[in-house]
């Protein structure tokens, strides 16, 4: 064959870069030139991705809500009570530490109650029916039963230094001071002045009595009472049963060899189980909905890509007739579907986020976006778009040029 003058760009890499940049230019022109088609192609991706994000985020919010309900009602707590005669001095601090060391335990608090109600008098106001309890810092930090309205709750230092501080409830604060603005004031409890550190109120709208809570070791010193009851907080709802078994094992060990029931497990996981199974089935539903959203989006993308390539078989034939290799045609369509999928994916993620935020604002919820779904939706759309843009283009690029030109 006669030698022709070589017009080509010199250098392998330079030529590759040139080819890719030229195709990118051509592809973006193609996309811009037929905005309707491009938009329709993107639409499947936008719908798939955004609906996935919206669904997943809303499900998350609902799941969080029922988890919070469990926490506020204290449904995940493990309560143990012992018969006082069964142990001379009650449980010791060592026992508390050992129990706190059980796997999946977030915290433990002894529950020491006075047994009868006491009265508190401030200025001219006397409140007779006050329930006095000794607890640890975990009573507040590990539980959402009580919401803090003012000041702070008991902390580890208060226990270590045996501070004469207390947390009272709103009901008592209103009764004594006519307001919850009483942090820093002192109240006499059983003849000793206690500094009010904080004011709380039950998270759930339940009836509560006048309440004063002080560090349990201070309570022990004042009353001579031992620890004959405690509450353990598992670190997660799902770990509740496991922790409960471990606690019972510990207690059985403690009363080793004794036949009678010396302690009661007052834990009631009935509602916890009910709620968690609700949460679990919601999660399962979430997966199904996600799969459906992705499937519908995927079919939309697939459909548009197939139509796009079929419509353009003539173009593929012409490009082959003018000397394009099959590979270069495939590269063109891969890049084209990639750009469309990417634009659609980004638009879908933005649409999903905006809709979810709108939903949260409208429903008065805390704003939450399921980030994983945005990621998965975007990647999935890309994968489907690129695959279904590429594979029919690959098939078409393998045709004889004349067959493609005739649009077969």
């Amino acid at each position, binding site marked *: 064959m006669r030698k022709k003058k070589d017009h080509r760009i010199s250098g392998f890499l330079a030529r590759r870069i040139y080819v890719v940049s030229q195709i990118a230019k051509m592809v973006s022109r193609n996309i811009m030139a037929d905005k309707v088609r491009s938009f329709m192609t993107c639409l499947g991706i936008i719908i798939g991705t955004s609906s996935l994000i919206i669904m997943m985020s809303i499900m998350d919010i609902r799941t969080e809500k029922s988890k919070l309900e469990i926490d506020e009602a204290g449904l995940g707590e493990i309560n143990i009570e012992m018969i006082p005669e069964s142990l001379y001095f009650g449980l010791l601090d060592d026992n508390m530490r050992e129990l706190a060391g059980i796997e999946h335990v977030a915290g433990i608090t002894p529950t020491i109650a006075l047994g009868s109600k006491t009265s508190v008098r401030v200025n001219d106001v006397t409140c007779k029916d006050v329930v006095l309890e000794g607890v640890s810092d975990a009573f507040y930090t590990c539980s959402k039963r009580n919401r803090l309205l003012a000041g702070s709750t008991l902390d580890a230092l208060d226990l270590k230094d045996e501070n004469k501080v207390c947390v009272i409830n709103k009901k008592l604060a209103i009764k004594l001071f006519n307001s919850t603005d009483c942090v820093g004031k002192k109240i006499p409890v059983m003849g000793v002045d206690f500094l009010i550190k904080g004011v709380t109120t039950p998270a759930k709208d339940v009836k509560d009595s006048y309440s004063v809570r002080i560090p349990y070791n201070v309570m022990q010193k004042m009353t001579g009472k031992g620890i004959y009851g405690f509450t353990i907080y598992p670190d997660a709802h799902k770990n509740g049963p496991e922790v409960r078994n471990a606690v019972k094992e510990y207690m059985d060990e403690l009363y080793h060899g004794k036949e009678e029931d010396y302690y009661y497990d007052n834990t009631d996981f009935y509602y916890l189980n009910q709620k968690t199974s609700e949460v679990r089935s919601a999660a399962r539903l979430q997966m199904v909905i996600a799969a459906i959203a992705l499937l519908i989006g995927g079919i939309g993308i697939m459909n548009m890509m197939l139509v796009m390539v079929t419509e353009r078989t003539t173009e593929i034939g012409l490009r082959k007739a003018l000397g394009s290799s099959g590979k*270069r045609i495939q590269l063109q369509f891969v890049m084209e579907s990639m750009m469309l999928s990417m634009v659609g994916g980004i638009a879908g993620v933005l649409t999903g986020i905006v809709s979810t935020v709108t939903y949260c604002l409208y429903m008065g919820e805390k704003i939450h976006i399921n980030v994983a779904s945005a990621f998965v939706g975007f990647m999935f759309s890309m994968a489907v778009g690129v695959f279904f843009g590429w594979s029919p283009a690959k098939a078409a690029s393998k045709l004889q040029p004349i067959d493609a030109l005739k649009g077969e």
Partner: protein
Amino acid sequence: MADILIDMKNIVREFESGGETLRILKGIDLKVERGEFLAIVGPSGSGKSTLMNIIGLLDVATSGTYIMDGQNIKDLGEDQLAYLRNQEIGFVFQQYFLLPRLTARENVMIPMFYADMPEKDQLEKSAELLEKVGMKDRMDFYPNQLSGGLQQRVAIARALGTGPSLLLADEPTGALDQKTGKQIIELFRQLNNDGTTIVMITHDAKVASNAKRILKILDGNIGEGDTADA
């Protein structure tokens, strides 16, 4: 010895259609020398386009040998065929086949892009070719802004982009009025005078008379036609 560009022996092309085999080309022998201007005539449906597509490497024969510029087509891979289509052959279709989203100039640049020509050269060369076909002032028009004759000129400029040695035209004037057709044929004569080998299909005897040699296809067989101005 003459420089043979196209050497076909016993080319057969069959199509499967509705369960039966149609033998459209029934053993064609064809030799084309470099520098020739050959016209192929014949009634509609006689297999002219089918033959042309095989010559232009857009289709493959069912059987027979095709040696192009000394190379047996059977021995070539996909990429080598693409290279030949790009470098050695310029194809002009009856339906022009311009890409509607590209301007005249961009259409002309397509084969140059597949030849990996630098963009600067593409711009220069496309302008030069469009000037040659009389389209200098409409380079940035889109196909739908151009008449059929002008679109065919763009298609011819496109076919010449990589300096092919063989120009194939399948009824290039078929969709044009007489005057425009004449201009296109005049363009071909010029190109032929400059050294391009041309094979053109037509069923217009007047158009064919411009060629140096005329072959007639009848019912899938080829025969020598009238030789014009030999």
